[in-house]
């Protein structure tokens, strides 16, 4: 019963609920009118409604208000009441403001008790209805006389009134959570609102009325605005309806992928905001002199997308924007922000999820009561769900019947080991393949680019994509051997593909590092040559023009300048290609295979898609520093993939054969994402900290290290004392203690959490013990608790206890309709007594006489043995025991 009753979207979504909220007041007006129509014959009905049973004064006051109104006639009243709802809301709020001291004092603690009170009152009122009606009739006549006393309320009365009003308000606020019928709720609402309106009006009379009216109006407006805003917010959750639709067709497991995708999109949007706001836009605005790079060399190598495009000038524009600094900080900030968000999300999920495990205390119950997915709205899925529920029941039954399947378990183990071996082979093979290809591509790189075919140029990327395409299905086939529950199987599958991607990623990275190193060598040469050429040029210039100062820079067209290889851009391009190719493989191949070839419909491959997403995000994180445009491209990619996949899954996939539930907040995905984030963080930070930046391209050209930008800023831009502070802070003598402190803090927190966990476990165990004890006591009570029985026999009011005959012949378990209120208490009392005695006598021989622990209840509906004197008390079963004795 996943998400109990969260059925399909377009019915039970929040939006609709808001609509309910919207119509609620109106609706209540409507039915109020109706109610009025019914009540017309009885003039006193209205007064009765608004009055708590216990306060006579209040009722009198009410009448004072009530009576004049009634005189005005029905018609007017109807009109006025229509608005009263809204107004009350307003006034309620307002009064809440004015009486804050009071409200604050009792606020939360009283909420529950007040609800109870409310209940009682209502209960009491119903009983007292008739009496009151008469009273009221009398009062109504009286009420007309003492209008004048209206203004003069004593302080105590005022206070009481305020309290009551508060109470009513609370009732209104919590009304939605009450398990009542709508009719009753409406009635309560009306009552409470009428009450509040009346007495708030009374309370507000003394002060400036205009101000009051104005406040009411404002609060009304504010409430309306808030409501609209809430509606707007829910309407703004992107793709909610799409995801719900998918969910209803494919179950929550598939939906969890899309929710993850949406989350990822949000994250990327923020990153995109960072990058574009702080890096790209400043650069674009101030780069008139650098525009030629774009046209340069035919393709987009030196475009805004890549590292090489950015200017090394310390500050640009009117605002003296420090671009290199901002570039570095944004590059690191992306990681910082992502880490923070991922961890926060994980923590929140963990909080709200709790530990669902609970070591299978309620296996059958949960299966029985919560296994239906209320979101299913598709016949096919429903059939699958029926089938899977049945299977799961059968599985548990089999498990229950024979806990150990000896002959099977060895085979199972063998198969699992075999499967893991196979998969390891696959992983190793693919890792080696990638390594080999990368090596080869380095050899290719040494040759002239023009000689190479397109295939040779892009070999690495193609091989990687192919592996990503081939391996997951292979793993899935192998995983068939293992015969896990699909939820567990999904996790294994995710882990394996993750390992594959990871291995690929890292072999790829190491190969890339080789390449980068080669580029760095190359660059050194070019740098020396350039410096030499410049020197020569200056020397020549001095020679010819006889000037030593103000030498114009060499007049060479930018296309002819010998440029370094700019390894950063190279890295950016590689990650760009990988991303792009993975997009291609994602969309196009899927389209080709599914739409044009039309094989048999496949299930939606959750694990593959999730990992594709995660891996891709890792690529983005890694590449974002070297290719700021990558984030933007990724946003587009995710956007299109959302629409495309939503469509594709509805068009080309069939529901899973074994529909299983996945929780909406999936920490497993998040964990993988965190791992990938961490892994992609490392190479980037490594390059930033160790490798020297290219000398002639990018924002850090001319620096020895990238982080020199920060040093520079500290020295030049910040006041000197800041520099001092930083120099102190970077002192190892300070850093070491700080790290130590953190470690200690972590250790301490860890210890505390462990302690809590232990306490938790302890409590759980205690609860379990108590439960078992209780059960045992119940089961054994009749046979063991002899003293109790003797006592009971001697009790004077035995006449109250029915002759056991009537019920005892009937199977108690079938007694559906006995009055439970009656049964509950005596049973509890009996156990209460039993606590003390039971232990001493638990070994006593079974007493044939049954204890009579209950007063008589109404008879069960089934056929009863007609005789009043049934079998002798001993042989039957007491009601409290009920049913066949539990096993054990």
């Amino acid at each position, binding site marked *: 019963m996943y998400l109990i009753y969260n059925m399909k979207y377009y019915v039970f979504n929040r939006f609709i609920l808001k609509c309910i909220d919207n119509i609620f007041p109106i609706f209540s007006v409507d039915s109020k009118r109706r109610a009025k129509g019914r009540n017309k014959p009885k003039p006193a009905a209205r007064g009765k409604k608004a009055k708590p049973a216990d306060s006579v004064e209040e009722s009198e006051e009410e009448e004072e208000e009530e009576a004049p109104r009634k005189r005005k006639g029905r018609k007017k009243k109807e009109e006025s009441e229509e608005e009263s709802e809204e107004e009350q809301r307003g006034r309620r709020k307002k009064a809440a403001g004015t009486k804050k001291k009071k409200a604050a004092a009792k606020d939360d603690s009283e909420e529950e008790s007040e609800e109870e009170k409310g209940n009682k009152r209502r209960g009491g009122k119903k009983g007292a209805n008739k009496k009151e009606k008469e009273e009221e009739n009398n009062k109504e006549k009286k009420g007309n006389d003492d209008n004048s006393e209206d203004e003069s309320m004593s302080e105590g009365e005022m206070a009481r009134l305020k309290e009551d009003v508060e109470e009513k308000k609370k009732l209104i606020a919590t009304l939605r959570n009450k398990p009542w019928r709508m009719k009753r709720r409406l009635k309560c609402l009306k009552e409470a609102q009428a009450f509040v309106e009346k007495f708030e009006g009374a309370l507000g009379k003394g002060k400036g009325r205009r101000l009051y009216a104005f406040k009411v109006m404002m609060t009304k407006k504010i409430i309306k605005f808030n409501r609209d805003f809430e509606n707007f917010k829910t309407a703004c959750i992107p793709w909610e309806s799409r995801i719900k639709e998918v969910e209803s067709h494919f179950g929550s497991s598939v939906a969890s992928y899309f929710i993850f995708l949406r989350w990822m999109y949000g994250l990327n949007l923020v990153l995109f905001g960072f990058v574009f706001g702080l890096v790209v836009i400043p650069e674009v605005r101030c780069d008139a002199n650098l525009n030629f790079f774009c046209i340069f060399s035919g393709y987009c190598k030196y475009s805004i997308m890549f590292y090489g495009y950015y200017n090394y000038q310390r500050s640009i524009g009117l605002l003296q924007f420090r671009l290199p600094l901002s570039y570095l900080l944004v590059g690191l900030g992306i990681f910082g922000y992502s880490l923070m968000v991922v961890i926060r999300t994980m923590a929140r999920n963990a909080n709200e999820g709790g530990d669902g495990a609970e070591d299978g*205390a309620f296996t059958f119950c*949960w299966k029985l009561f919560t*296994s239906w997915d209320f979101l299913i*709205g598709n016949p096919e899925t429903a059939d699958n769900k*029926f089938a899977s529920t049945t299977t799961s029941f059968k599985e548990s039954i089999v498990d229950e019947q024979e806990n150990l399947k000896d002959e099977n378990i060895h085979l199972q183990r063998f198969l699992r080991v075999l499967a893991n071996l196979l998969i390891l082979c696959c992983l190793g093979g693919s890792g080696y393949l990638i390594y080999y290809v990368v090596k080869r591509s380095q050899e290719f790189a040494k040759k002239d680019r023009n000689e190479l075919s397109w295939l040779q140029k892009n070999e690495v990327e193609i091989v990687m994509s192919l592996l990503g395409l081939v391996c997951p299905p292979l793993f899935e086939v192998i995983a068939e051997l293992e015969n896990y529950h699909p939820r567990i199987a999904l996790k294994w599958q995710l882990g394996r593909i993750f390992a594959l991607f990871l291995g690929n990623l890292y072999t790829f990275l190491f190969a890339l590092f080789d390449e980068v190193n080669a580029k760095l060598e190359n660059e050194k040469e070019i740098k020396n040559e350039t410096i030499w050429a410049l020197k020569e040029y200056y020397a020549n210039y001095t020679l010819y023009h006889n000037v030593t100062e103000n030498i114009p820079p060499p007049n060479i067209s930018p296309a002819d300048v010998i440029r370094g290889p700019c390894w950063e851009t190279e890295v950016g391009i590689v990650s760009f290609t990988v991303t792009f190719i993975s997009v291609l493989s994602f969309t196009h191949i899927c389209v080709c295979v599914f739409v044009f070839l039309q094989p048999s419909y496949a299930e939606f491959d959750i694990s593959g898609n999730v990992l594709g997403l995660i891996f891709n995000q890792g690529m983005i994180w890694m590449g974002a520093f070297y290719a700021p445009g990558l984030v933007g491209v990724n946003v587009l990619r995710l956007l299109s993939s959302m629409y495309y996949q939503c469509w594709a899954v509805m068009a080309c996939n069939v529901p899973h054969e074994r529909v299983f539930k996945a929780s909406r907040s999936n920490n497993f995905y998040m964990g993988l994402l965190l791992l990938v984030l961490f892994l992609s963080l490392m190479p980037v930070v490594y390059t930033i900290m160790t490798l020297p930046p290219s000398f002639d391209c990018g924002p850090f050209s001319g620096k020895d290290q990238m982080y020199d930008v920060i040093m520079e800023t500290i020295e030049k831009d910040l006041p000197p004392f800041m520099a001092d502070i930083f120099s102190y802070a970077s002192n190892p003598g300070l850093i070491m203690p700080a790290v130590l402190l953190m470690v200690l803090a972590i250790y301490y927190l860890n210890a505390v959490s462990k302690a809590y966990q232990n306490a938790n476990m302890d409590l759980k165990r205690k609860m379990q013990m108590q439960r078992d004890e209780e059960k045992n006591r119940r089961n054994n009570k009749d046979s063991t608790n002899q003293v109790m029985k003797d006592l009971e026999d001697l009790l004077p009011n035995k006449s109250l206890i029915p002759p056991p005959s009537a019920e005892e012949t009937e199977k108690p378990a079938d007694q559906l309709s006995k009055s439970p209120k009656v049964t509950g208490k005596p049973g509890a009392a009996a156990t209460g007594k039993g606590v003390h005695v039971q232990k001493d006598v638990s070994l006593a021989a079974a007493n044939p006489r049954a204890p009579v622990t209950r007063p008589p209840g109404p008879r069960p509906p089934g056929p009863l043995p007609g005789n009043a004197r049934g079998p002798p008390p001993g042989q039957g079963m007491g009601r409290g025991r009920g049913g066949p004795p539990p096993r054990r």
Partner: protein
Amino acid sequence: MRSDSQGDLRRTLSYFFLHCSLHGRYHELAPHLVPMDYTNDPDVKIPLALIVNMPELKENPFRNRIVESFSEDGQGNLSFNDFVDMFSVLSEMAPRELKAIFAFKIYVHSFRGYFNVDNYICNEDLEKTLNKLTKEELTPEEVNLVCEKAIEEADLDGDNKLSFADFENMISRAPDFLR
């Protein structure tokens, strides 16, 4: 106190909301039964058979029970009040406790009283639930076993029935309940 035009406005608005949301759906179910005009206070009820055909309920094995438990007469005829009630409880926003209460109500097949915590889920109820859930594909022995186990697991006070307290205790710990 207020002008008539405001009253008119309110009425129009109320019409608007009723039309556009829930009442629209309600009306859709039985256009011939449900009027759009409530001024004359008609007593409208839609029978169970029509409600059960809503796309949200159509595939649900408990659809009859759901509708029955929300109907005031217990026969499955829903007035608009009941209808709104059902939507509000089944929506995502409804608090967990409320859902537990109504879940209990749905699983107790012969429920007495509107909300009475002293009702019990007994063996028969469990059997019915199980049969609905599996389309009666389990053998009677299996059904018995499952029911027994379920009661054994969740029954805290040892009366071989699940009271609401038992039920709530059990369901509130379920990993799949309302997540």
